């Protein structure tokens, strides 16, 4: 149990960070003014929180609309998927608000536990403990709960990169210290994902890594070089697996393959198209009978059918809002670690949404990526909710004095906050934050 029981450990950790040079100052009375907050007292970003809660509820509605036919035909219960998604959504909301009240700095210390735990799960998954479905071994069954390590891996890599990049600071610019290790760890995760096989998650991991390295100041040349290598690798991997090649073929020649391999993307585009500008209305679409995985990876197609172009634009704006508020949180974060973490999480949401929608509109070949918060599935929803909880917590710790936000030099405010968080930690009974906990929930 890696709990932050020792306050000094926390402080040392932060003091050890090269840039964490601001001296600790005694805590200021501000803490006491926040009577209920278990973490630093600021309110969460209300816009971000509202958008997240809305998108989770919207997901439940759309999952029901997209899954009742499948539930009825396959499980003789139209509400089969609804009841499950409702449970996941309950868990997701609890996780969202629970984590938003726990200081994200506690995660700092647990970084390696998260990373190693996730790595272990990924390895276990391909080592034979996994549970197969849809031609891939992407799940690990723990009793009745099936978890998808690849979903956790995306968050884990963000957590670790934020930690590592914040710690290495200026050293990020170097190749051996700042670039290669990150790429190697990410590469290991990617290889584990590819073994499942889960090409989509591997691509997301790579792009996340590039994005965070880029933001942290890695040389663009290295990233470009790695990107070229990565693309070459991607091409080889597509050519090496016949089903990936088929998907690519199906994508290139959608119309010809609409009865066979291109059936799913073709039906997805048809769903979008049949929705027109205003859509059929929620629950009135008929494409769920034709579109496989309508409630998971292709849920946006049902949104397109039932809510039309208006709905899709709303959906895109909603994601854009979440990402933008996340980036705002990153910009206002009290420290590097928080900034990187917030940015990584926001980018994680954004890139998954873009990829998923691109697949659904057949702009990209089928990948098997979920639409964050909307697709049916516990792992995806709970991991994303956990990430969003962390993001909300960072938003809480933004500058209280807005006027100080753009101040060029560190101000006591931040120091005060950090000290405060440490103090609070001591006062609180320690909720444990273990990778295992997150996983068990999903």
């Amino acid at each position, binding site marked *: 149990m890696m709990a932050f029981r020792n306050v000094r450990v926390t402080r040392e950790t932060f003091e050890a960070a090269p840039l964490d040079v601001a001296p600790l100052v005694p805590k200021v009375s501000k803490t006491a003014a926040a009577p209920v907050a278990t973490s630093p007292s600021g309110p969460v970003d209300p816009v971000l929180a509202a958008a997240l809660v809305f998108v989770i509820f919207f997901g439940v509605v759309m999952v029901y609309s997209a899954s009742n036919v499948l539930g009825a035909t396959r499980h003789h219960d139209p509400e089969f998927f609804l009841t499950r998604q409702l449970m996941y959504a309950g868990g997701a909301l609890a996780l969202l608000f629970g984590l938003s009240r726990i200081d994200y700095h506690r995660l700092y210390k647990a970084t390696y536990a998260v990373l190693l735990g996730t790595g272990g799960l990924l390895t276990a998954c391909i080592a034979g403990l996994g549970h197969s479905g849809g031609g891939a071994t992407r799940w690990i069954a723990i009793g009745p709960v099936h978890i998808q390590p690849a979903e956790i891996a995306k968050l884990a890599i963000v957590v670790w990169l934020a930690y590592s990049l914040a710690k290495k600071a200026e050293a990020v610019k170097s190749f051996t210290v700042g670039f290669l290790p990150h790429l190697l760890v990410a590469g290991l995760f990617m290889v584990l994902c590819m073994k499942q096989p889960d090409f989509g998650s591997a691509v997301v991991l790579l792009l996340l890594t590039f994005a965070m390295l880029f*933001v942290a*100041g890695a040389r663009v040349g290295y990233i470009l070089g790695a990107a070229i290598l990565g693309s070459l690798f991607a091409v080889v991997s597509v050519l090496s697996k016949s089903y990936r090649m088929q998907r690519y073929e199906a994508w290139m020649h959608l119309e010809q393959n609409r009865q066979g391999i291109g059936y799913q993307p073709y039906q997805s585009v048809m769903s979008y198209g049949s929705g027109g500008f205003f859509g059929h209305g929620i629950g009135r679409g008929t494409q769920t009978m034709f579109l496989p995985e309508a409630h998971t990876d292709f849920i946006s197609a049902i949104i397109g059918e039932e809510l039309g172009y208006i709905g899709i634009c709303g959906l895109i704006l909603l994601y854009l809002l979440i990402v933008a508020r996340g980036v705002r949180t990153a910009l206002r974060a009290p420290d590097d670690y928080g900034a990187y973490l917030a940015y990584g999480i926001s980018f994680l949401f954004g890139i998954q949404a873009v990829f998923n929608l691109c697949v659904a509109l057949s702009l990209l070949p089928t990948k098997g990526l979920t639409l964050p918060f909307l697709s049916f599935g516990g792992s995806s929803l709970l991991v994303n909710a956990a990430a969003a909880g962390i993001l909300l917590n960072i938003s809480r710790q933004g500058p209280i004095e807005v006027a100080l936000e753009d101040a060029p030099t560190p101000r006591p405010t931040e120091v005060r906050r950090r000290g405060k968080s440490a103090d609070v930690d001591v006062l609180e009974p320690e909720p444990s934050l273990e990778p295992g906990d997150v996983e068990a929930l999903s």
Partner: protein
Amino acid sequence: MRNLDPNRAKWIRFRMGALLVLVASGFGALASTAWRVQVEEGHAWRAAAEAQSKRKLHVAPKRGTISDRHGTPFAVSIEVPSLSVDVAELLHGVEGQEAQAQALMDAARTLAKPLALDEHDLYQKLSKKKRFQWIKRRLSAEEVAAVQALVDPRKTDPNAKPLKGLSIDGEGQRYYPARTLLGPVLGRVAPDGSGQEGLELALDEELQGHAVEASKGGDDGAHAEDAATGHGIELAIDEGIQHVAEREIEAALKTYETRGASIVVLDPETGEILALASAPGFNPNDFIPTKDDTRLNHAVVDRFEPGSVMKVFTFAAALSKGVLAENEKIYCEHGYYELAGAKIHDTHENDLLTPTQILAKSSNIGTLKIALRLGEPELYGAFRRFGFGEPTGLPVPGESGGILRPRGRPWVEVETATASFGQGIGVTTMQLAMAMGAIANGGKLMEPILVRRVTDARGQTLRENVPHVRREVVPRSVAKTVAEMLTAVVEDGGTGVEAAIPGYRVAGKTATAQKADPATGRYSEDKYIASFVGFVPADKPKVVVAVVLDEPMIGRYGGDLAGPVFRRVAESSLRYLGVTPFKGSAKLADISRKDDVADRALDALRPSPPSTLAPPTDTSFGPPAPGASEVPDLTSLPAREALLRLTKLGLLPEMEGTGRLVRQQPAAGTRVPKGSKVHLVFEPGS
């Protein structure tokens, strides 16, 4: 980033912003793609999606029933079970090409045997991996039971794996309980449920009903069983009269060896068509693509030169125009007259005739003289007002409008003369009946009513065709005068004595028209159209009957051939309608047994014994199928009643013999799937 060197922090902010812009532009690209797909191409995609979901749901609602004016069904749809498969569902959870092929092979093997299908063919079918594929349509009870055992095998073998993706759905099959009755009018339905000919085609939209938007809620989502039923069509046809007409037309066809024939029975007051018979007919139940001729509705499709019947309308026009006096005498040239080089003959040599006599003796010369007094525009106009030269507007496909001016210009004098006695123009039987109806009812040309009522699935009237006067053609007094003159036709000395009905005053007109030989372009010597169009009782007409016989081989004259047919049809119709004769007490005994006429009609409805006895469906084992019906006890019921009871339950009757039911197979109380055949044996009561 407050901990950072400001310069570096600035860079980080910049890079974060740049990546955000990148993500935003990704979203922007998505929005523009969605615009193209949803708004610009939306209509095409929506049409494709709708077509697809219709196929999948086969939401073609149950086709509406066509019945006569008393609700006796002429065409009903019953549900028969059919087996389809969703191959994607069948292969759910089977990965890899080889495993899938193996799974399909196994499925084909398992299914082929109980369904008596070829295993290889079935495998080929399945290999297309369609989301919807018929496996076998119209399953028997054993086949249904066998499939159910495959879908849910746990009853027999707890370890057996169920076959997924199969579904048994009721598929509508059209059945015509009245067999050949009204066949050419009803038309037929293709196996896919679309009307192909006759009323089934003309009223296809109504009969099919509108596929309601398939509700996705509940577990009926994929079935949409409550898709709307098509509208019911109630015809003006009276089954009893229709039957009489067909019986007589059949008799005429055999007796005179005519090429074809048509009969229209009409209520002159309302314009309702009580019978519409066309021979040769066909049985829509066992449709075989034969010569189209048998499936044509000759009464509305065929255009022919009517001959002397047209004299009636020439007279009506002349009387209403005042160019003809009721009691004047017209010189008929002793049966030979030349007009602009054309030689015109009468069958009888006559001197001076009254208008009534001209009609009774059917003098062409007398008629043409009257027509020439009228002049071309007046005669043409009168014919048009009587409804010739345009379709009567029946809701049947292919109705001919006839042709009045075949050369597209006003008639020259000779043409006016010949048109006045029905040569050189083309009309249909239906037009003749409607025009005669206008004489019968006092001068009003009615809209013909074939469809009386359109009802929805719950029997609520959606549309009703009420009698509607198309136009006042001649004054009431003129119509009365002409009607009175026409009674002379069937009296002694007239051409239509054969058409007289004891006890009733008949008004009508015979016609014997030579057919134009298309080979020579002249009138044929041996090909005639013999017809009789009349109404009865003359003073208060209840029915108009038009009989047209095409190319009789035996006999020639309309009075001799069509007259008796008219008499029998009209007499039966009158009795059926309960019109009492005013004289001729000899027939009073018949009147007291008025119901027997209807019974007789139904007796004839019973088919002759089927040539081959279809093996009765054995249903003694197996669980009751979905949509199963219990065979009712029909013993001692008359055919009509038995037939109604069975079709209501969705069963197919097979009938043998006449009289009352003595045996049935399967026995009463047996549960059989809908669409099963029930063999009925009738014997005349003792």
